């Protein structure tokens, strides 16, 4: 199992990268009134056939040839279901895939959300040719990071040079702190 949900997000987003997505949307939405934490990863990559989609939640299915197990999706699914939550994966060949996990926020078995800043920062700075749209919401407060907006401003300045990489990290950390308003999830 992963130790925090942000690692599941990083892992599932790696599938989107392998599926040659050009835009990956990651949504984290916390609703304290409904006692719910929703995580969604949506991509415009290759997608999966109905056949593959049926097998993807099976821990003994993988497209890799280096090992015979594929635990990424099962880990995420069990993490959600063990809180009484919901897990859903939809895919359309040629259009993309969406993975949605809903957790019961206060459930004792819910893993901590963990370091989302590191996950999103790693994804952006190590995959500079892919665009990311990240949104983080707690109740009625939220922030968005859209690398397409960053790209418009930066032109040919790459995301992985120290100054920009640092800015992206600060942007994620400071804005999440502000949205969290002293609370930890």
């Amino acid at each position, binding site marked *: 199992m992963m130790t925090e949900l942000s690692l599941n997000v990083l892992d599932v987003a790696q599938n989107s990268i392998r599926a040659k997505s050009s835009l990956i949307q990651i949504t984290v939405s916390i609703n304290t009134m409904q006692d719910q934490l929703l995580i969604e990863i949506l991509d415009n990559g290759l997608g999966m056939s109905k056949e593959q989609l049926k097998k993807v939640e099976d821990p003994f299915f993988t497209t890799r040839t280096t090992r015979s197990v594929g635990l990424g999706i099962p880990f995420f699914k069990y993490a959600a279901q063990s809180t009484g939550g919901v897990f859903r994966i939809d895919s359309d060949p040629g259009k993309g895939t969406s993975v949605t996990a809903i957790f019961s926020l206060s459930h004792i078995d819910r893993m901590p959300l963990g370091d989302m800043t590191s996950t999103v920062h790693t994804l952006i700075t190590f995959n500079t040719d892919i665009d990311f749209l990240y949104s983080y919401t707690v109740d009625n407060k939220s*922030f968005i990071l859209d690398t397409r907006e960053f790209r418009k401003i930066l032109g040919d300045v790459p995301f992985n040079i120290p100054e920009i990489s640092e800015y992206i990290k600060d942007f994620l950390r400071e*804005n999440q702190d502000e949205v969290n308003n002293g609370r930890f999830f």
Partner: protein
Amino acid sequence: MKTLEELKAIREKMQGQVGLRSEDANQTRVVVGMATCGIASGARPVLTTLSDAVQTKNLTNISVTQTGCIGLCQYEPIVEVMEPGKDKVTYIKMTPEKALEVLEQHLIRGQIVSKYTINSEGRI
């Protein structure tokens, strides 16, 4: 809230200063396994520690990248060092601290840290 205005200011400052990193044959490649097995065993902080250190030390001849699963899941996090003209060195069960040791000893001083390689302790 951090704003896009700050990004514009950085962009102004950077204008004309950004030299493209050389991706030539003399480049040393450092590769971190970032599949489920790697991530679950702690590859994310290893990757970011290496990448941050390479940037702060301005080691322009080293590029840190990520890869998938190489089939040695029980030894993750794995860091592979590929220097031009030399055999690949595979470091296993890495932590950010061990990775920094590899950076100092191997990547900067050229001494392989054999206690962390897969060949040590009769593993292979």
